[in-house]
C-alpha cells in the first residue's frame, strides 16, 4: 500500500465518527475488529501460504480468557488483557507444533480439528464457559479513566489498537523476515537449500498470527461485552478466510477490504435482504470468478488498464 492510499484510508477512518450516527460508528468498530483478525490470518494464508481453517480459536480463546478472569476473579482489564494475550500466544505456540507437522491440505485439516476441539470445549465445559449461554455481564476497559461505553469512544479506542496492529503488520510484511516468509511460501525447497529454517520461519509466523488474533479477540469481547462458543467456531474461521481471499491474500489492504465487505453484508445489508448469506456467497463467487487473486489486486489492475487507456486523466 502506498503512502497516498494509506493517508486516504486514515482520513476515511478518522472522518467516519464525525459523519455517521452511533449505528454506523459501531459498524465501523466491528469492521476494524474484523480487520485486525483478518490481517492476522493473512500472515499465515497470504504471506506464509499456510491456509488455516481454525484461526477463530485464537480470537475466541483470548476473548474467553479475558471474560472468565473478570467473572471468576473480578480481575481488571489491565491484568486480564495481558494474561489473555500471553495465554493465547502460548496456545498458538503449542498448536503450531502440532499443525506445522504438515503443510497444504494437512495443515488446513489439523487447524480445523484443533479449532473444533476448542469450539466443542466451549460448548461442553459449562462450569468455565457457561456453555451455550456464553459469558455475559462483561465490561469494557476504561483506559486513563475514559469511559468506552459510548459508540464514539469505543470506535476511537478500536481505531488506535487497529492502527498499532496494522503498523506492526506492515512492518512485518516489509521486513527481512517477511521477505524470507514469502520465500518459504513460493519455494520452500530453495529456501531450505539456502540455509533458511523453513519450519522455524513458519512457526514464528504461526505464533505471531495467533498473537494478533488474540488482540482482535480482546477488542471483540470488549465490543460485545459477551462471548459465545460461536466466536470459536468454524463459521468464524471460514468467514475470516473469506475476507482474506476476497480482499486479496498476501496484500496489506486486502484483508481490510474483505473485512469491510463481510461485516457490511452481515450487519447492514442483512437488514434489507433476508438471505444475506446467499448474497455473500454471490459476492464471493463474482470476486473469485473475475478477480481470482482478490478485490484489491483486481481493482488495481482494472484501474491501471483504465487509466492506461486514457493517459490524460490524472493518476491517483
Amino acid at each position: 500500500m502506498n503512502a497516498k492510499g494509506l493517508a486516504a484510508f486514515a482520513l476515511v477512518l478518522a472522518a467516519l465518527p464525525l459523519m455517521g450516527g452511533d449505528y454506523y460508528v459501531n459498524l465501523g468498530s466491528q469492521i476494524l475488529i474484523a480487520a485486525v483478525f483478518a490481517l492476522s490470518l493473512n500472515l499465515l494464508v497470504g504471506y506464509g501460504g499456510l491456509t488455516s481453517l481454525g484461526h477463530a480459536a485464537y480470537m475466541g480463546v483470548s476473548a474467553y480468557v479475558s471474560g472468565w478472569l473478570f467473572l471468576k476473579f473480578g480481575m481488571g482489564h489491565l491484568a486480564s488483557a495481558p494474561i489473555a494475550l500471553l495465554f493465547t500466544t502460548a496456545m498458538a505456540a503449542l498448536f503450531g507444533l502440532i499443525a506445522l507437522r504438515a503443510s497444504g491440505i494437512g495443515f488446513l485439516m489439523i487447524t480445523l480439528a484443533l479449532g473444533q476441539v476448542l469450539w466443542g470445549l466451549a460448548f461442553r465445559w459449562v462450569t468455565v464457559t457457561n456453555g451455550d449461554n456464553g459469558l455475559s455481564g462483561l465490561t469494557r476497559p476504561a483506559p486513563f479513566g475514559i469511559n468506552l461505553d459510548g459508540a464514539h469512544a469505543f470506535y476511537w479506542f478500536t481505531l488506535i489498537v487497529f492502527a498499532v496492529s496494522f503498523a506492526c503488520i506492515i512492518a512485518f510484511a516489509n521486513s527481512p523476515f517477511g521477505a524470507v516468509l514469502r520465500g518459504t511460501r513460493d519455494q520452500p525447497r530453495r529456501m531450505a537449500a539456502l540455509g533458511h529454517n523453513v519450519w522455524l520461519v513458519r512457526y514464528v509466523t504461526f505464533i505471531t498470527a495467533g498473537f494478533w488474533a488474540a488482540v482482535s479477540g480482546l477488542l471483540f469481547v470488549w465490543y460485545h461485552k459477551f462471548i459465545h462458543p460461536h466466536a470459536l467456531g468454524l463459521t468464524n474461521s471460514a468467514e475470516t478466510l473469506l475476507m482474506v481471499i476476497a480482499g486479496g491474500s498476501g496484500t496489506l489492504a486486502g484483508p481490510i477490504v474483505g473485512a469491510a465487505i463481510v461485516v457490511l453484508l452481515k450487519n447492514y445489508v442483512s437488514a434489507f435482504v433476508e438471505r444475506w448469506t446467499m448474497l455473500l456467497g454471490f459476492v464471493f463467487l463474482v470476486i473469485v470468478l473475475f478477480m481470482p487473486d482478490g478485490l484489491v489486486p483486481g481493482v488495481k489492475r482494472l484501474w491501471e488498464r483504465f487509466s492506461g487507456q486514457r493517459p490524460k486523466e490524472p493518476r491517483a
Partner: protein
Amino acid sequence: MTLALDVTGLAKSFGGLPATNDVSLAIEPGERRLIIGPNGAGKTTLFNLITGDLPADAGSIKLFGEEVVRLRTDQRAQLGLARTFQIITLFPKDTLAHNVVLSLLARTPARWHAFTPLAARRDLYARARAVLAGVGLADSAERPLAQVSYGEKRRVEIAMALAQSPKLLLLDEPLAGLSMEERQTVQALLAAIPRDITIIMIEHDMDTALAFAERITLLHYGKVIVEGTRAEVVAHPRTREVYLGA
C-alpha cells in the same frame, strides 16, 4: 587434510528400488569433481541425499569432517554447502537482486528481523548487485526474474549459490538447456570460481564437463561403476559399455 566431502556406504531406496546403492565418495578440498551417468543413474538423488532434501536410508556423509547425515537441509547449508537445481527453482515475481538478497539473508541474523524494513538494507542490495555483476547480469538486477531469459535464470541460480561464498558447491546440470553461446558464458563463469570453493558437478555436456573436472565418478543404477582421473574414466571399458552400449 580433512576431506571436503566424505560419503561412505550411502544408500537410498524408493519402494524397494535402490536409487543410491552403497555409494562412497571422497572429495578433496578445492577439487572439481564430475558425476556422470545415464538417465536414472541416481545422480540427482545423490545430490539430494548430500544436501538433505532426501533422508538417507543408511551411510554417512561428512562435510569437512563433520557428520551431517542427520542434519536438516538448512543446517547443512549453514555449514557452507550450496547447490543449484536442475529444474530452475527461483522466485519469478521478484527482481534478480531480491532473489540474491534472499540468498544473502540466509547468512545473516538479520533474516529474523521483523520490524526493520528490508529495503533499508542497502548493503545487502549492493552486495546482491555486485554478485549479479560477477555473472554478467548487472544490467538486469532490477528486472523481475520472470522477464529474463532461461540462460540468464541459470546464471541467477549460480549467482545465488556463489553469493553465500560456500565451501562446497553442488551444480546440478548447470548447462542444461543452454544455447552454444550461453554455454560458453556459463562455462567461463564456472572456470573462474576460486579454488577455495570445492565443486561437484552433474553434467551431460561431455566436452564442457571433461574440460572442467579433474576427477570423474561414473554412476550406473545408483552404484559407483568407475572413478578416477579424466583419462582413466574415459578409457575404462565399463564407461564405454554404459555410455555406448558396446
